[in-house]
């Protein structure tokens, strides 16, 4: 029983990573109605930028703040340059665009900073949290930041005019235009916000998985899975989904014999898909009634 509890707690700790990534995924989904496969790479690139600034002598929080701004602007630039021209193209072409973006960012990061692992500092330190061997202060910090972000996003979408406009633009663009919303800029804004949130995720994750161009691969998949399990319309669902995925992953690794690191991912995904087969809109997703 104790092993079980420990593994669950450890799973929640690692799940914070996925929860944070999942928030960025849901953010962009709210803005553009599909998933951005290059999101992990964008987060990775932002983290490298932060690292570089610290290499040049900037203190952590200064680099953090500048990276946030850089990511926000970067997200908007990418959207305007790459995806606005594709606005009228079919969805699958957009996906090809995401894949192209992924390849470009990964390649450029690899060339600029090479593929050796680098250390990335944590503002929370890495001592045991409240004496517990399972959760470090950094992991507790991650959970804390994720929850704060969640609350901020909730407030943003529910109680601000811009948040409302963004939701409207994402769900019914034509109606949104008919109330005077510039849907094109709503999309750009969504990208910017998602990039910024992604950069926070990256900077929180890097101390744990170490900074290198391929660090976000597995994390992004779990982030997507978490967002989907949570129900793509729900930031709360994304966070809970993230924790659930973390716990699943850990329990699978602990209790299913013969499962090494390589099989953890597909099995965790398989379990997630089982959830979806039972609840196709995710755990917290809204069922949209469609009249024929």
């Amino acid at each position, binding site marked *: 029983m104790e092993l079980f509890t420990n593994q669950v707690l450890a799973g929640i700790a690692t799940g914070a990573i996925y929860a944070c990534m999942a928030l960025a995924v849901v953010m962009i989904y709210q803005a553009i109605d599909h998933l951005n496969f290059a999101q992990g790479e964008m987060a990775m690139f932002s983290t490298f930028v932060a690292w570089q600034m610290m290499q040049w002598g900037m203190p952590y929080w200064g680099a953090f703040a500048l990276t946030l701004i850089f990511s926000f602007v970067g997200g908007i630039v990418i959207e305007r340059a790459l995806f606005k021209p594709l606005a009228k193209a079919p969805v699958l072409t957009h996906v090809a665009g995401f894949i192209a973006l992924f390849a470009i960012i990964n390649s450029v990061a690899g060339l600029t900073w090479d593929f050796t692992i680098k250390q990335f500092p944590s503002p929370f330190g890495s001592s045991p949290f409240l004496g517990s061997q399972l959760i470090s202060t950094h992991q507790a910090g991650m959970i804390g930041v994720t929850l704060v972000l969640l609350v901020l996003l909730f407030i943003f979408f529910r109680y601000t*005019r811009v948040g*409302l*406009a963004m*939701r*409207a633009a994402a*769900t*019914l663009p*034509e*109606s*949104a*235009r*008919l*109330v*005077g*919303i*510039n*849907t094109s800029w709503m999309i750009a804004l969504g990208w910017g916000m998602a990039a910024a949130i992604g950069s926070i995720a990256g900077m929180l994750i890097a101390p744990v998985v170490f900074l290198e161009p391929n660090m976000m691969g597995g994390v992004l998949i779990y982030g997507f899975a978490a967002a989907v399990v949570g129900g793509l319309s729900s930031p709360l669902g994304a966070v809970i989904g993230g924790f659930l995925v973390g716990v699943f992953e850990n329990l699978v690794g602990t209790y299913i014999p013969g499962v090494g690191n390589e099989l953890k991912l597909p099995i965790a995904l398989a379990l997630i898909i089982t959830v979806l087969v039972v609840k196709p809109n995710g755990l917290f997703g*809204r069922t*949209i*009634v469609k009249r024929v």
Partner: protein
Amino acid sequence: MTALLHVKDLRAYYGQVQALHGLEFDLQEGSLTTLLGANGAGKTTTLRSICNMIRSTGSIEFEGKKLDNKSTESIVRLGIAHVPQGRGTFTTMTVEENLQLGAISRKDIKAIGDDIERMYAHFPVLKQRHTQQAGTLSGGEQQMLAVARALMLRPRLMLLDEPSFGLAPLIVRDLFKILGKINREDKVSILVVEQNAQLALELADKAYVIETGRIVMSGTADEIANNEDVRKSYLGY
């Protein structure tokens, strides 16, 4: 007196197909005008062209400003509210959120709350349901919500595309009464596109008849209602 809306030589296209063939008409400030026509005549196309939602050529002027190269949302911000066919309700959002969205482009934030209350006064059923998801409302209620949302813009011109569609006659009567009230009291000019000619002609003061993309008749509502061709084609007697 310059017209509120001046449409000249409007030609509209869906891809290669031309739907409007040189449409021309004027709307005076304070008027309640109806645009009548059969299915496919070009009524919806006309409204969509005004808001630049489809490809068109020609000249459209609102309060003296040219609308030709403006985006839909900037045209709306000039003071033209458009209630589209099918109502365009944000079904996943609450009734109140829908009303807030109607006012989303306004800068006078303090006045919005008062306006929402005024909408609830016009349409009490919306107040009853104000925290419900808009998609759960009945057809008639959604139509009222759509009109209320449009009014939240404080428009000077309101375009309505077949508001009677799919609604029971009694509900349509109520809706049209409210539209008349809004036109008179709130001084909102209205252009109603309708297939239901009888009710529309009772409500409006001016009317146009459109056939295959051209205006074929214009006059006061009474004149049009008493016109023999109109009576045969659109009123059934």
